[in-house]
């Protein structure tokens, strides 16, 4: 197990490096045009452009540019020229909100997907299964920002059942915090519930016919024990790793749409606003940190998965 962990961590570091290079390439090399102009945001002055050019090293070779860019990002020296704000600081401020959104949605979708997936598997072929499958398919087909916007409009603005967007920090008022997050959690979960419940249903249907389930019954275990201890547990294992990946993806930037629609002022919304302004430095930083986070989380998930399924430790 220790060797497995070591292998994974070493691999992770290599990937993180590659990500930093790739992000750098995306923003500073691949696109056409003057990089300084891109970074400077809207309406820069000649003097600003010159400063940017020297600070970022655009007049120097590529590896120097890379070095300077990374230096700026990691030493907190990255400033958005459009808003004059320190990018890293903004990100740090916004992280708790994004985290609260992501973790709440992740738990919600996992619980609901498990219940839904198991139920539709047990009732496979019957009307309730077909009906819920259709619902799941509709859930997958709806863009999260559209659903969120409509929920916010009807439930928040028009009928005033829920607050009309906005965020209340947990430390200030837990009840309000949850109250404000219920709609965003639901909107974000809908897509994942659809996907995960179907995968779980498929896994359960496969597992139910597996021989070891028959053995479990032959041992005299009750149907409930068979379902929970053997079927569900084995069906969930592959999903755990997917869940980790998706949670990472949501946290790493997938929440961008939900945050924007509900005005939660998280990292995602910061990115969205920067995009709207074509303000590059924040987008660069967020992209990189987002990817970093995902890779780290993937590695953690890999390690947890290996702890759960011993066959994986051989890879």
């Amino acid at each position, binding site marked *: 197990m220790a060797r497995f962990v070591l292998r994974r961590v070493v691999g992770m570091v290599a990937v993180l490096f590659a990500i930093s290079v790739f992000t750098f390439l995306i923003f500073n090399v691949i696109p*056409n045009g003057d990089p300084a102009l891109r970074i400077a945001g809207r309406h820069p002055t000649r003097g600003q452009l010159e400063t940017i050019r020297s600070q970022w090293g655009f007049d120097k070779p590529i590896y120097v540019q890379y070095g300077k860019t990374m230096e700026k990002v990691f030493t907190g020296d990255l400033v958005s020229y459009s808003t004059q704000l320190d990018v890293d600081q903004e990100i740090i401020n916004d992280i708790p909100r994004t985290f609260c959104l992501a973790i709440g949605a992740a738990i919600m979708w996992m619980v609901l997907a498990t219940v839904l997936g198991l139920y539709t598997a047990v009732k496979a072929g019957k009307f309730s299964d077909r009906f819920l499958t259709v619902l799941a398919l509709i859930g997958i087909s709806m863009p999260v920002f559209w659903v969120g916007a409509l929920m916010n409009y009807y439930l928040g*603005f028009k009928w005033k059942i829920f607050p009309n967007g906005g965020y209340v920090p947990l430390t200030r008022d837990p009840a309000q915090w949850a109250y404000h997050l219920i709609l965003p959690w639901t909107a974000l979960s809908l897509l994942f519930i659809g996907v995960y419940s179907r995968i779980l249903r498929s896994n359960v249907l496969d597992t139910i016919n597996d021989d070891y389930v028959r053995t479990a019954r032959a041992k005299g275990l009750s149907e409930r024990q068979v379902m929970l201890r053997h079927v569900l547990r084995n069906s969930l294992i592959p999903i755990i790793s997917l869940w980790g990946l998706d949670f990472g*993806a949501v946290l790493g930037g997938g929440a961008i749409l939900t945050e924007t629609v509900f005005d939660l002022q998280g990292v995602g919304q910061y990115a969205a606003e920067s995009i709207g302004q074509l303000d590059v430095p924040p987008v660069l930083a967020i992209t990189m940190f987002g990817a970093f986070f995902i890779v780290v989380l993937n590695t953690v998930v890999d390690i947890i998965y290996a702890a759960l399924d011993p066959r994986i430790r051989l890879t």
Partner: protein
Amino acid sequence: MATEPATEFTFEGPVAFEEEAKRERVAGLGPWALALRRLRRNKTALAFGALFLVIAGLCLAAPYWANHVAHSDPYKNHLTDTVTVGGKKKDVVKPNGVPIGPTWRGRFLLGADSNGRDIAVRLLYGGRTSLLIGVGAALSTALLSVVFGVVAGYFRGFTDALVSRSLDLIWSFPVILLGVALGTALALGGLKIGPIEIQGDSKLIPILIIAVVYVPYMARPIRGQVLALREKEFVEAARAQGAGPLRIMFTEILPNLSSTIVVFLPLMIANAILLEAALSFLGAGVRPPNPSWGTMIGDGVEKIVTGPHLAVVPGLMLVLTVLALNVFGDGVRDALDPRAKLHLEH
């Protein structure tokens, strides 16, 4: 029995019976014919497939609608116009900025947006853009995935390591973030690869971005399949006959991938359409004033208080299209391999 879709009733009986029943089936139908037969029996999938075609057809007919029914075009704003509905004269856009809702008439069938533009017209033209980008991106993804997947899986070794690591790299980024990053970066100056130059506001940019972002999700399963296929006896036989790698890839490996590709395509198109909508919504995809379902939803959400139809209409169209593709794609997958474990990795 072994060929029924997984959602039909599950037969629980000893394995011997499946063997018995299989022996009873008339042999002689090729896998594609069998799949077609299964698909034809799936009325739901066929209905939704037809729905998609209807929607696509409507969008293709956009100019006809614009010119002959609505008497408008996607960019013309009728801010100061009035229209007669049910005998009463109504402002297209009221002085307080509230646009007219659906009139269910030829003009402004689905209402107008805050700029006084005919939503139905924009919807159809926007559909052309969204569908073009969606289908174009999906096909590009398929092409790139097959190329990379086959090359990596067949040659293995260093080539495989290079391709796989690159795919992993792309895959590490959350889909939206990467799309947004690329969209923002390429928005101003466009893309220049050697002699080829693409403008920042060309539709090719979103197509390319979406294609690249989704390649790992399709290339990895394909690579996995190729790894397994290359060990099969018929590949060995071809090699023994003296066939070179290119020939083997085309005549032995590619045909066996075709069912995987066919299963992936509808789902890919659906995801591409959704991603385009998300990117355009954020402003990193199709640029205004060009209509696409994403930009329309974006505008609609922004001005939702003036009229929910602004957001509801394009959104519904989008949902219907994507749903149609998802249900049809599900049916295709069940028809080709009822026990398929190949899912689009999310």
